């Protein structure tokens, strides 16, 4: 069983919803990212999504675009992101890490090469935003060969047929994009999310994470009642932006923020 599947199974046994923070790797620098990953785990993160910077992030709103620009200004490449995971793994063998990004850096590295290097560094899966299952066949093959999961997105526009197809192609978990829009978009509609997550769960057996538009503890707690994982990105990344001049403060501030989300979600899990 993959580290991701094992993690979701143990969470289910404990009746706990996963908290999954997203940060852009190398924003504002590589050392801070690794320290931040550890701080997030200490604050209650169950899995980490690490954003791989790409010059043309079409699914991202301004907050993550600017984080990407900061990372790219530092010259962060896919191989550097993999190296950050290797550093992280030196002292954390448990917490699953998923790389989230766009296909082109992986195309350039080569699918097999990417899968081998990522697996060797302790990466557990990849979520490639611009690869739907229609185009994912070769990538899935390369990742599976190294025991890596390919996490797929589901959207408000996904038909039942597509949900089934994606459920068949995905492994680890699926990521339900709660709003029509880019990352950091406006507020999610809880009733709508509840309907869609219910539908998804009725069609496929994988754990369902919900992300896009979760900005505060109250929303995180509400989503925790519906989903297997709460994914928070822009709300973290915008705080990192505010602290870019004092990167040493980032792990503690983000840790506090996540601890607040965690406490609210745990209240929801018990309730």
């Amino acid at each position, binding site marked *: 069983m993959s580290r991701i599947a094992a993690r979701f199974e143990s969470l289910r046994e404990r009746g706990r919803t996963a908290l999954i923070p997203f940060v852009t790797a190398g924003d504002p620098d590589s050392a801070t990212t690794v320290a931040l990953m550890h701080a997030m785990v200490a604050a209650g993160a169950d899995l980490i999504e690490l954003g791989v910077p790409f010059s043309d992030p079409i699914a991202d709103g301004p907050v993550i675009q600017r984080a990407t620009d900061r990372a790219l200004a530092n010259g962060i490449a896919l191989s550097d992101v993999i190296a950050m995971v290797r550093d992280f793994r030196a002292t954390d063998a448990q917490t699953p890490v998923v790389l989230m990004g766009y296909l082109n850096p992986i195309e350039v590295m080569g699918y097999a090469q990417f899968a081998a290097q990522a697996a060797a560094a302790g990466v557990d899966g990849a979520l490639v935003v611009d690869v*739907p299952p229609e185009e994912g066949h070769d990538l899935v093959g390369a990742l599976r060969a190294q025991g890596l999961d390919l996490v797929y997105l589901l959207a408000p*526009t996904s038909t039942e047929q597509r949900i089934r197809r994606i459920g068949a192609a995905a492994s680890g978990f699926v990521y339900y*994009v709660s709003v029509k829009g880019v990352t950091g978009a406006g507020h999610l509609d809880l009733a709508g999310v509840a309907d869609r997550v219910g539908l998804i769960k009725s069609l496929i057996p994988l754990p369902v994470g919900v992300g896009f538009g979760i900005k505060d503890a109250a929303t995180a707690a509400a989503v925790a009642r519906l989903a297997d994982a709460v994914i928070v990105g822009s709300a973290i990344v915008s705080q990192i932006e505010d602290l870019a001049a004092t990167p040493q403060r980032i792990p503690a501030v983000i840790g506090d923020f996540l601890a607040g989300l965690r406490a609210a979600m745990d209240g929801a899990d018990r309730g």
Partner: protein
Amino acid sequence: MATQAATMAETIDDRRSRADVRARTPYHWPDADGHFGPYGGLFVPETLMQPLTELREAYERYLSDPQFQAELDADLQDYVGRPSPIYLAERWSRELGGARIFLKREDLNHTGAHKINNTVGQALLARRMGKTRIIAETGAGQHGVASATVAARLGLECVVYMGEVDVARQEANVYRMRLLGARVVPVKSGSRTLKDALNEAMRDWVTNIDNTFYIIGTVAGPHPYPAMVRDFQSVIGREARAQMLARTGRLPDALIACVGGGSNAIGLFYPFIEDSEVAMYGIEAAGDGLETGRHAAPLNAGRPGVLHGNRTYLMEDSNGQIIETHSVSAGLDYPGVGPEHAWLKDTGRARYDAITDNEALAAFHSLTRTEGIIPALESSHALAYAAKLAPTMRREQSILVNLSGRGDKDMHTVAKHEGLIL
């Protein structure tokens, strides 16, 4: 899937039968999933998959709908002013020596470029699909103007994304779009040119898919755009093929078109694709020179990758980040190229070369002075290549150049190169 592909191909054949092109062709690209060999495809976030499926289905339906086709033909004739003539550039040809050069006069279309052939078609489709809002990306502003134009005519809301750099160098077109009632949004991210405008338009589309139709201005983007835009632009080649036959009794020996995303080029090439005796040259922007790295020539100096929904040749660094491009012409300043051109390059059916800023400017002046036609800087790249090719050919041979647009929008840029401020 196979039967669906066959059905779609047949309907396209019906459409092509006017020019009697596809009827005898084994060329059947893209495949049912939008691939041209290894290129093209559908590399988009999940949110866009269903809207793109709906678009493809609507497009396939109207492709074989006689009423839609009649409406499109009427618009192309009465609104765009088609057919556009072919013109023998006699004096210019004589001056250059060698082959006779004919120009396909897309500059005479309403709004001054080939872009309107596509926007008229996509706007009709948008209306049939019940969309009330149109978005577009633009580089030179020609596609933005062509989109704003059809939106005004159909009473649709229109938002045009344009890189900040392009807003500055194409201000006349920005004003035209605003006069037409469009909102022009300057894009400040990335290199602030066409690719970033495309990114921003995609983000808008993901956010507003319920009421919004995205009119992509070239043969790039996810399936079905490369095929759909090609089909709308193929009116250029269908007319030109018949016109050359009527005028000279035979097909031209060579076709030349500039390649930004590649829509005017594929529009000219496609109906000739099975005419193996016709050489096809796509001309990219070499900017300051291919060797300087400051250019916009992915087919000549890039390598395959994935951007904006499709796999194609790109300008990228060794980490797969897209790099900034340079060209004197905003319409060619794009780091990718339509996937069908990538395929035509690999298969050898078309050849791709590049022309520098200075060569294009020289051709701009040369055509203006000898023929009284002021070409767009984009089209001037094709003309500059014709000026190199013609002298290597015989007088009985002919070259057909796609004069994709007129140069009025480029007055400021050209004047600046002469040290003048208008």
